[in-house]
C-alpha cells in the first residue's frame, strides 16, 4: 500500500455514509475509491474541483467576493440561507449563525424528506441504527423500495447480507419481503412478495396495523397477502421495515408516512420492529441534526422574528415561489439543490459558496468554489440513521468551505 492510501474514509454519495472506503491518491488525484459502490465512485470522482471565485461572472479575489456577499445579504429585506449538500456539520453551523444574525429564512436538503419528518413529529418513531437492524432483524420488509438503486450498499452493509449477533448466517438468517407499491418495486430476490396498487397502500398499512393489534376484521381477499405479511411480522423476532424517505415515483404522502410509523410502533410489544427511513447523501442528515440542536426545528426555519419559527409548509421552495426572497446564500454543492429551489434561485440575487459553485445553473452573483466535505475537508457528518461519523479528507482544495463561511460570518458580525 502506498503512503497515499487513506483508509476508513466516509463516503457521502448517499445516506449510507459507508466509512470503510480506501482512497488511493496518485499525482494529486483520486485514482481509486476502494470498496465504494458505483454511486460512491462517481461521488469521489478524481477529486478535481474548480477553484474559481467570481463576482458578477468575473474572476475576483476572496476578499472581494466576501465583501460583495456580505453587502448582498446585509442589504436584503428577506434573505434566505440554504444548506445544500457536501458540507460538514461545522460548516452548516456557521451558516445557521449567519441566518440567525440576518434574521433570514433557512432551509436545507433535509427538507426533501419533509413528509417523513412531519409524520415522526406527529407520531414519534420506532427506529434503530442500521447496525442494530443488522444484529437483530430476522424479517426485513422493503416497502416500495429496492435500495440497490439509490443506496447500493445498504443490503451488503446493513441489512440483509451481513451477519449479526442474532443473525449469524447473514442473509440466510433473514426472511426478506418485498412490498411492490405500484411501479415502486422491492428487491427482486425477496422471499415474499406483496403487490399493492398505489391507491390502496395506506389502507393496506391500516389493515396490517389492525392485524398486528389483533383487531383485524374480515377483509376478504383484498388485502390477503398484506395481512399474511402482517402476521409474519408479529411472528418475527425483530422486523425491519425499510422505506424510502426521499421523493420517488410514489408521491410523498402524509398518511402513508404516518401509517408506516404507526405500523412499526404497533409491532413493538408483541415483538420488536424498527422503521428504517432511507435518506439521501451529502450530509443532509447532518443539516437536519444541526438545525434541530440550534433552533429546535429540523428544516424550514425562519429567523424573521428574531428567533426561530417553524414553517414546514413555507420552506425555501415555497418562499422562492411566492417571490418573498430578495437575496440568497447557498452553502454547499449547488448541483445538489432540489430543482424547484435551483430554478427559482435564478431570479434572486444569490451568493453560492461550495463545491462547483462557479458552475451553478442559477448563475449566482457571487460564486466561491470550495472543496467537498469528505474529499477535501474533514469534519463531522451524519449517516441516514443519525449516527455521527468523522470525515477524512484525501486531497487539498484551495478554499475550504468551513473557513470561507466562517470568514463571511465574522464579516457579518455573527
Amino acid at each position, binding site marked *: 500500500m502506498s503512503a497515499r492510501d487513506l483508509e476508513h474514509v466516509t463516503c457521502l454519495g448517499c445516506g449510507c455514509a459507508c466509512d470503510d472506503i480506501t482512497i488511493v491518491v496518485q499525482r494529486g488525484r483520486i485514482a481509486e475509491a476502494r470498496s465504494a459502490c458505483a454511486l460512491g465512485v462517481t461521488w469521489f470522482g478524481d477529486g478535481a474541483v474548480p477553484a474559481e471565485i467570481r463576482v458578477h461572472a468575473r474572476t475576483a479575489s476572496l476578499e472581494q467576493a466576501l465583501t460583495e456577499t456580505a453587502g448582498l445579504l446585509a442589504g436584503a429585506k428577506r434573505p434566505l440561507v440554504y444548506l445544500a449538500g457536501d458540507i460538514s456539520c461545522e460548516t452548516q453551523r456557521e451558516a445557521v449563525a449567519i441566518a440567525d444574525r440576518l434574521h433570514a429564512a433557512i432551509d436545507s436538503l433535509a427538507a426533501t424528506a419533509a413528509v417523513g419528518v412531519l409524520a415522526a*413529529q406527529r407520531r414519534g418513531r420506532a427506529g*434503530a441504527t442500521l447496525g442494530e437492524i443488522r444484529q437483530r432483524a430476522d424479517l426485513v420488509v422493503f416497502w416500495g423500495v429496492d435500495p440497490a438503486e439509490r443506496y447500493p450498499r445498504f443490503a451488503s452493509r446493513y441489512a440483509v447480507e451481513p451477519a449479526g449477533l442474532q443473525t449469524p448466517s447473514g442473509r440466510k438468517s433473514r426472511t426478506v419481503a418485498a412490498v411492490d407499491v405500484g411501479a415502486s418495486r422491492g428487491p427482486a430476490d425477496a422471499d415474499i412478495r406483496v403487490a399493492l396498487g398505489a391507491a390502496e397502500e395506506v389502507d393496506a398499512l391500516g389493515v396490517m396495523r389492525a392485524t398486528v393489534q389483533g383487531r383485524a376484521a374480515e377483509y376478504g381477499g383484498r388485502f390477503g397477502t398484506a395481512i399474511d405479511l402482517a402476521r409474519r411480522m408479529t411472528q418475527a423476532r425483530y422486523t425491519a421495515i425499510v422505506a424510502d424517505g426521499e421523493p420517488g415515483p410514489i408521491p410523498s404522502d402524509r398518511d402513508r408516512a404516518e401509517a408506516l410509523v404507526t405500523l412499526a410502533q404497533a409491532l413493538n410489544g408483541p415483538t420488536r420492529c424498527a422503521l428504517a427511513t432511507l435518506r439521501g447523501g451529502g450530509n443532509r442528515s447532518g443539516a437536519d441534526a444541526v438545525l*434541530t*440542536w440550534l*433552533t429546535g426545528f429540523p428544516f424550514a426555519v425562519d429567523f424573521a422574528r428574531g428567533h*426561530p419559527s417553524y414553517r414546514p409548509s413555507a420552506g425555501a421552495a415555497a418562499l422562492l415561489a411566492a417571490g418573498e426572497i430578495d437575496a440568497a446564500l447557498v452553502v454547499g454543492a449547488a448541483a445538489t439543490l432540489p430543482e424547484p429551489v435551483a430554478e427559482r434561485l435564478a431570479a434572486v440575487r444569490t451568493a453560492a459558496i461550495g463545491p462547483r459553485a462557479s458552475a451553478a445553473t442559477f448563475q449566482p452573483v457571487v460564486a466561491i468554489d470550495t472543496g467537498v466535505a469528505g474529499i477535501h475537508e474533514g469534519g463531522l457528518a451524519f449517516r441516514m440513521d443519525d449516527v455521527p461519523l468523522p470525515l477524512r479528507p484525501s486531497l487539498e482544495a484551495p478554499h475550504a468551505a468551513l473557513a470561507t463561511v466562517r470568514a463571511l460570518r465574522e464579516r457579518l458580525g455573527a
Partner: protein
Amino acid sequence: MSQPTRLRIAGGTVYDPANGVDGAVRDVCIEGDRIVADLPQGAPRLDARGMVVMPGGVDIHAHVAGSSVNHARRLLPEEHAADPVPAPRLEDGAPARSGTGGTLPSTFATGYRYAGLGYTTVMEAAVAPLAARHAHAELDDTPIIDAGFYVLLGNDDYLLDQLARGEGARARDYAAWLVGAARAYAIKIVNPGGIALWKGSGEAGRRNVTGLDDALGSSTVTPRKILEALAGAANALALPHPVHIHCNNLGQPGNAATTLESMKALGGQRAHFTHLQFHSYGGERGKAWQSAAREVIEYVNAHPETSVDVGQVMFGPATTVTADGPVEHLLYTSTGRKWVNVDIELESGCGIVPYAYKERAAVAALQWAVGLELFLLAKDPWRVVLSTDHPNGGTFLSYPELIRLLMDRAYRDERLKGVNHKLLAESALLDGLAREYTLGEIAIVTRAGPARLLGLTSKGHLGPGADADVTIYANDADRARMFATPRYVLKAGTLVVEEGQLRRAPAGRRLAVRPEVDAAAAKDVKRFFDRYASVSFENYGAEPVA
C-alpha cells in the same frame, strides 16, 4: 463593567460549605479565572452587601446534549414554537444566538438559561458511545457552562459477552478504553441488562429484567454482575466520579426493593444512584403504589459510600427521555402519547415520551411527595443532590421552585393541600415533615455536594485556586424568585450575568477524563467491532481523526 481580570466581591453573605463558611460576611476575590485569597486595595469591586454569594451551581444529572436529546427536540416543534428565545443583547453588541426553549431547549438557549440560573457546570447524563461525537458537537454549541457527559455502559453486547466469559478484568479495561475514546467523564449504567433484553437479546417475548438476579438469555450474566463489574471498574480506575446508576425497574410500584438490593450489592463501594425518586416506590407491580422513600433514604443515610440525586418531579410539562427503552414503551402504551424508540447498535437504546405531571393525578402527586421525602429525610446533604433528571421530572428551570419547597415549610404544606392524596397514605410528608433547608444546605445540594461527588476539586467552592464560578443572589424571602434570577453570575472570572441580565457568553470548557488503557483491550474490542459494528473501529469514539 468590562470583563474583570481582578474583582473583589465585597461584603456579601457567603455560603461556601466546602470551606466551612455558612453565611459569613466576607469578600471573595477573583484574579483571572481563579479565586484568590486576597487582592490589593484598589482592585475593582462589586458591592455585594446584603446579597448572598455562592459558588456557581453544579448539575450532576441532566439531559442537555446528544442524539437522544436531539431526537426529543425534533419530536417537539410545538413546544419550541411556544417558547421562542430571542438572542440576548450582549455587551458591545457581541454576537449572540436566538433559539427555542420548551422542555428541551436548543443548545445556545440551554447555555444561556443555565447561566441565567446561576449554574456554571452541567453533566449530560447519558450518551451512547456511538453518538459521542454528536454530543461533543452539541456541547461545543452550548455556551458558558463547563460540561461533560457520562457514557452508557451495561447493556453493550461486548461487555455482556466478556462478563459471560468471566473476563472481569477485560471488562474493566474495556470500560477504561471506552471512557477515554468517547472523551467522557464517567460511566453511566441504565437499567443494567434490561435494554439488552428489550432489544431482543433474551428469549422470545422477554422485554426487560425484573430484578438483580434475572439471567440475560442463556448466559449467566445478571444485572448484579453488570453493576459489580462496572462499579468495580470505576473505582479501580479511580475515576473522579463513581459509577452513575439508573437502577432496574424505574417507575414501577415496588421497585424500592430492587433499588435497595442494588445499593447493597455494591455496599462498601462508592456508587452514585441517580434520580432516586423514580426508584423509591412501595406496593406491588400492577397494584397500588405507595411511598418507600423512608426505607430507601435510611439506607443512604447509613452508608457513606452511597450517593444519590433525587430526580424530583415538578408539576408541569416534562419530557421523558432515557436510554431505558422498555420503560418508555410502557409509558407509551399507558399514555397513548407520541413515542420515539431508537435501538442503538451493540450498545444501548433511546426512548422518548412527552409527559405532564398534574397535581390532581394520583401517581404524579405520589412521585412529587416521594422526592420531597427523600430530601427532607436525608441526613447528609453532601450525598443527596438536587436534580429533576431534567427534563424527565421537570426542567432545570424548576430548580428555584424546588428550592422554595425545601426551604419554606408553609409554602410546601400549602402546595401539599392541592395535590391528590389517594396514594399518599404511607408518605412521611403527611406526618408533617417540619424540616426547612437552610441556605447553607441549599449551597451543598446544588453546588458543593455535586462538585465533590464529581471529583471536581476546583468547582463548588470559593477557596483560593477554585474556578471563579460565582453566583450572587439578592436575598429574597421568596426563595423561588431569589434563585430564579441571580443578580450576578461569574463564569471563570467573566461576569456573564449583571443586574439579572445575561451580558456575556464565553465558551465553556469540556470536562473529560482519560484513564490509562491496556492496548490489548482495545485490540480485542476491535476484533469484535470488525465483526459486528456498522462503523469502522477507527471512526468510533470522539477522537479527532485527521
